């Protein structure tokens, strides 16, 4: 008896539609977010994540509308990320139906945001998302959807945000994202061994074994994937059956 490994399908959303890119580029349309979320809930998803990928100011009301539509039909934890710049933005999303928010670029520009938001709403609803790429020595953190390289290293940055009050880390490997060649287990294990908050592994899921490895080797507490679930290449139920066979604790 213990807390289960979470399988989190992610909806990358732009202008109220699900989209998917490869290596953070080449965007294609992939359907209605609320329909997809509902299907994932029925299939046994443990949480739903929605990332608003361009999150422009003009598109904000569309985003909130989508969040509300999903929250009205899906009663499992629901994380929303993209374009969050202030405590007010966090509050608006929580009011619209998000249970957690995921903060990426703004956390780097203004680390105080993590501190203030976690004090105000609790660490349990503040996820810090990190996009990073291996530089031969360690993993460099990037901002703005992978466009801008920073001086930060993923390990020290994740430890820093943990201190600031983040409740979880959503770690996306830019080297692996969209490649379907497996998660970056070195990166994830390095973080997991040094953090006391849960680690969500993201980027690279292509086949069932990748998810098993992310948990067994990468020591992730949760795995997040978008396209493999979206295009029904692998069902959530199938993933869970395999994890169960591997004697991992899962919710069936």
């Amino acid at each position: 008896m213990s807390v289960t490994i979470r399988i989190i399908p992610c909806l990358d959303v732009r202008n109220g539609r699900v989209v998917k890119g490869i290596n953070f580029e080449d965007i294609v349309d992939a359907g209605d977010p609320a329909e997809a979320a509902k299907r994932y809930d029925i299939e046994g998803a443990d949480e739903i994540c929605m990332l608003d990928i361009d999150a422009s100011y003009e598109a904000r009301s569309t985003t909130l509308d989508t969040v509300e539509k999903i929250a009205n039909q899906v009663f499992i934890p629901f994380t929303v990320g993209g374009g969050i710049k202030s405590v007010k933005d966090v509050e608006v999303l929580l009011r619209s139906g998000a249970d957690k928010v995921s903060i990426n670029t703004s956390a780097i520009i203004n680390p105080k945001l993590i501190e203030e938001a976690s004090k105000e709403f609790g660490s349990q609803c503040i996820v810090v998302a990190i996009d990073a790429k291996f530089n031969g020595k360690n993993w460099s953190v990037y901002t703005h959807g992978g466009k801008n390289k920073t001086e930060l290293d993923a390990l020290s940055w994740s430890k820093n945000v943990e201190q600031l009050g983040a409740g979880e880390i959503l770690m996306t490997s830019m080297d692996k994202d969209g490649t379907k060649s497996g998660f970056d287990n070195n990166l994830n294990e390095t973080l997991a061994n040094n953090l006391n908050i849960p680690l969500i592994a993201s980027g690279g899921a292509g086949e069932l074994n990748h998810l098993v490895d992310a948990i067994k080797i990468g020591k992730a507490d949760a795995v997040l994937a978008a396209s493999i679930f979206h295009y029904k290449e692998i069902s959530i139920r199938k993933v869970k059956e395999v994890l169960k066979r591997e004697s991992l604790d899962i919710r069936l």
Partner: protein
Amino acid sequence: MKVGVIDYGASNIFSVVRALNSLGASTKIVKTPEDFKNIDKLVFPGQGSMGSCSKKLSENNLRDSLIDALNNFPFLGICLGLQILFSESEESEGEKGLNIFSEKIEKFSEFEDKTLKIPHMGWNQVEISQNHFLFKSIKSNENFYFVHSFASKEANQNEIFSKTFHGEIFNSAVGKDNIFATQFHPEKSGKSGLMILKNFLDWKI
């Protein structure tokens, strides 16, 4: 029938309201003593620390009305709404709970096993130790969603309805008379959670 949902000023109550509405219940947000009028049932959802919750209840003059309601209405406490029913918490020494249960809310012990993380966050099994109307159609050891760092470890045996393990055993549901409370979040626990909320709507004292 109208279900009051307590909003003491520092909690995300919207998911509870949404879940109750999805089951056809009509809800009323309860923020002031006057709001307790014309409600038939009461849900107390909560996140955050027991200390700030206790303070806000006093600041907003909700404490007396709440104790009155606890004597009269079917009551469901969720997460912090369970913890506030106890006398006090290690999280906020000196701040008083509602003392429906005389024991104390405690910290999780330090773990030897580094893979166990605090807060206890995620889906975990709820082992039913005593039947209750709110557990109707729920099997023992189904998974429910938890997010918390403090827990009820000591309570009167006949007031414990389920137990959960996270490095140690704690009480994941407690109750007495018209009062039931869960440490997990039924409003975020998918079908099984909605079933508990539905049972609460059907519950007659």
